[in-house]
């Protein structure tokens, strides 16, 4: 079928472009110790606030640390936070949404009311409140952002599950004596993965932004650990003398967020059944 017809570049170009950008960021994050030219923590007071040069491609910060290296290590933190946060949202939201749709009735009403309540809080406010009660740390930031994602994933999972439940193969599964739990995990889950993955890619971009925002506010990664958010926060104080302190983490965020958004959009187009054939 499709494979035999050859690779349709046009259909996949957004996925490829997004995947490339995401790939660069992920590569930098995973291999930071090998990719980064310097340690992100090494101070060099003789090299404070130097502009881009052969030794420091993207300049140095107010303590003489290599900005490129810090931006690369920051990708690590961002990816970790986003990965855990999206996982929390994806797993929690999918379980809640599938359960609500499958059992219906009071179970569904109770679960979705709770989700509405959670959803009605502004995301950043919810994260700040959660951090205030859990304490500020990167781990808590991840959990807070993850909880913010649960309502969105649960709504999507519920709607997708409802659509799958109308399919005859669910009736067929019941007719051979399959249990509810098995129907949910074996029959329904694989059939709602595509929209969930699209949402996950978009959520990833949002998680990166949220983590940066929290770090910018001093609620995420704590100095001296580098994060795009706290680098921006520092850079703000040197906007005139050293604009690269703001531009570099800004660009890194931009590439990362753009990459995940393109990937999400592309996956949506590729997996949307209406666009097949």
């Amino acid at each position, binding site marked *: 079928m499709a494979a035999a017809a050859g690779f349709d570049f046009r259909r996949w170009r957004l996925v490829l472009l997004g995947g490339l950008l995401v790939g660069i960021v992920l590569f930098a994050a995973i291999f930071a110790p090998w990719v980064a030219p310097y340690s992100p923590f090494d101070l060099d007071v003789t090299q404070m606030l130097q502009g881009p040069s052969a030794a420091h491609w993207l300049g140095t910060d107010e303590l003489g640390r290599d900005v490129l290296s810090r931006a690369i290590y920051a990708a690590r933190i961002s990816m970790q936070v986003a990965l855990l946060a999206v996982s929390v949202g994806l797993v929690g939201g999918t379980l809640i949404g599938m359960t609500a749709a499958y059992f219906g009735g009071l179970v569904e009403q109770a679960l979705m009311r709770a989700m509405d309540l959670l959803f009605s809080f502004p995301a950043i406010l919810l994260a700040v409140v959660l951090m205030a009660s859990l304490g500020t740390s990167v781990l808590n930031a991840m959990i807070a952002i993850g909880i913010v994602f649960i309502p969105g994933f649960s709504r999507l999972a519920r709607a997708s599950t409802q659509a799958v439940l109308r399919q005859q193969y669910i*009736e067929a599964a019941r007719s051979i004596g*399959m249990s509810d739990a098995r129907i949910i995990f074996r029959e329904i889950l694989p059939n709602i993965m595509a929209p969930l993955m699209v949402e996950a890619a978009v959520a990833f971009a949002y998680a990166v932004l949220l983590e940066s925002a929290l770090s910018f506010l001093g609620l995420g990664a704590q100095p001296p650990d580098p994060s795009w958010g706290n680098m921006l926060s520092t850079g703000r104080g040197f906007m005139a003398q050293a604009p690269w302190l703001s531009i570099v983490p800004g660009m890194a965020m931009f590439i990362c967020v753009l990459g995940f958004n393109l990937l999400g959009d592309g996956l949506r187009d590729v997996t949307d059944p209406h666009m097949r054939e």
Partner: protein
Amino acid sequence: MDIRSRALENGRPTLSVRDLTVDFPKRSGSFRAVDGVSLDVWPGEIVGVIGESGSGKTMTALSTLRMLPKRAVVSGSIELGQRRILDLSPAEMRKLRGDRLSFIPQDAMRALNPTMRIGRQVGEPLVLHRNLSFKAAVSRAVDLLRAVHVREPERRVEDYPHGFSGGMQQRAMIAMGLALEPELIIADEPTTALDVTVQAQVLKLLKEIRDREKTSILFITHDLGVVSELCDWVYVMYRGKVVEQGSVERIFTEPREDYTKMLLASTPTLFPREAS
């Protein structure tokens, strides 16, 4: 009355439905989709249920599987072997489905899970009811597919449903239904979605299964031609009731009820003599 030869040979019917009613509550009163239906399927017998759209055929079949919509209210009795279906717990009922009792739906294409390989799906009843491993179930699926004349079953078990033609998908559904040698197969218009030649092959297959396994089959259709070709005994349903029953020969040669006569007359090409 007609004589059901198989009833004389064998002591007990496989399926015995008595005074079955299915009601759907409505804002005022309720709608009776099945109205006092009684029917029997004897061992090794293929019994047809025929009637126009909305006459309650599917609701009768779903009652037997206990798979009616949640809001439906059922009364009467249904016995499969010695089991009183309507009195079983949900867990007991689940053990029966796919094991002693199989269901073959109208549209095989949509009854197969698009994300699961054919072998896995055909073997699933063995995993559910016989605790077979994934591998063992798939290797049994190869035999089952061969038994329903799917060619190169070793290779085909690896396919996803969209790689199967309509006729092959229906064969796969039948193979799944046969996996545990059920006492009764309920087929709800299993050939409606297929073209005429493929339809004939599937009917032949069902007959073959009956002859080989002595399985009882309850066959729902609104196609008189199919009934005449396949069934031993026929129930004619109209507005939730059984209006007439009899052997296929008798129903086709000397229908008694006006509704049956009308049904026969509406398909004149099949039986030109009766129609004229």
